[in-house]
């Protein structure tokens, strides 16, 4: 999976905007988008919010978790715990990148937020690597990790699956009944 595909899936999340135009309720295949009245907040998917913002038709309200104190608390909690804490949002990396690129004027302390999210990401990725290493070195057959986001899974997926394949090949050497080597037919 590409990071761009993960970003595409992230754009389905809802975010609050304050439009400066008015429009009746629109009926899309994915669902209804409520009537737009200037000055009144309304929930829309991120893809629409970014589009409207680029056309200067709305103002984006940062999500509740995109706040310096909250992110600092989450970062400290993540550093203390050995397991994964629930992420601010299942798509926190993508939303941070998109919102801070297109709507940084609507978000207070954008640079600090970027740094904090990056710290959070680094801590989680380090934990992920540690647990992958433990998984492999103890030759476990089954592992369960809670609270991982799709982007984190995506960056490690190719490497982890390939190494597990290699390990499987090497482990099958240990089996006493393994076949003596036949040439497979193509």
């Amino acid at each position, binding site marked *: 999976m590409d990071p761009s595909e993960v970003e595409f899936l992230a754009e389905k999340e809802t975010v609050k905007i304050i439009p400066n135009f008015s429009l009746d309720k629109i009926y899309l295949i994915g669902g209804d988008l409520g009537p737009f009245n200037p000055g009144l907040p309304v929930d829309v998917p991120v893809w629409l919010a970014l589009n409207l913002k680029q056309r200067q038709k709305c103002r984006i309200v940062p999500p509740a978790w995109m706040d310096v104190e909250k992110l600092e608390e989450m970062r400290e909690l993540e550093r203390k715990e050995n397991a994964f804490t629930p992420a601010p949002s299942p798509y926190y990396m993508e939303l941070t990148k998109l919102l801070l690129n297109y709507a940084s004027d609507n978000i207070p302390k954008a640079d600090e937020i970027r740094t904090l999210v990056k710290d959070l990401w680094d801590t989680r990725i380090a934990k992920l690597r540690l647990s992958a290493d433990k998984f*492999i070195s103890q030759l476990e057959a089954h592992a369960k990790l809670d609270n991982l986001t799709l982007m984190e899974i995506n960056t490690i997926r190719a490497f982890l699956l390939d190494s597990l394949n290699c390990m499987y090949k090497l482990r099958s050497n240990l089996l006493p009944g393994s076949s003596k080597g036949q040439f*497979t037919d193509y």
Partner: protein
Amino acid sequence: MDTQSYLPVQPGVGMQENFLSLDDILLSHERLPIRTECAFPRLGYLEKATDAQDIPQGLYERKRRVLSVELPKVYREGWRTVFNADPNVVDLHKMGPYYYGLGSQMLHFDSPENPEIAQTLLQTFIGRFRRNMDSSQNAYNEDTSALVERLDCLEKFLFTSGQSGLNGFQSWEKGRASQLTASSLVLNYRKRKMADVPP
């Protein structure tokens, strides 16, 4: 989004090798010292008993009952203790670039040390896993030849897949994923560019 038009045949699982896999073909060309158990009449090169000759391992496969093979020194007791002590310091590329593959193939040859060889292969892989994972996932946009030169072919393959994950993520984060860039194949054609054509 990232499908290839050419899918290479993977090396075989464990003790099998895939006939069409390039990696398996190359590794079966590693030479092995052998001893012949009986006389081969009229074959000038191979003489009886104590001569130690080298023949390619793939050729050996078919002559199993008349020859006995000696393990290359990398798989013997001495090196095995080195690997068990600390797998990370060994230069696996120098030990034969196909350490893991050849080791798996050696298990065909019914040596009494087979279980230990198999165990050592596995433990070496596990011991080096951490270092390989960290280096492949953290080395972005730098010259990785110093990291890669000590890796066996299998580990090089893992290294490239780790790097591709990392590069994908980093280029997405920089926003390069949504910009059109010329494919490297097209750049290699070295065609004239619009800017260079005189109006």
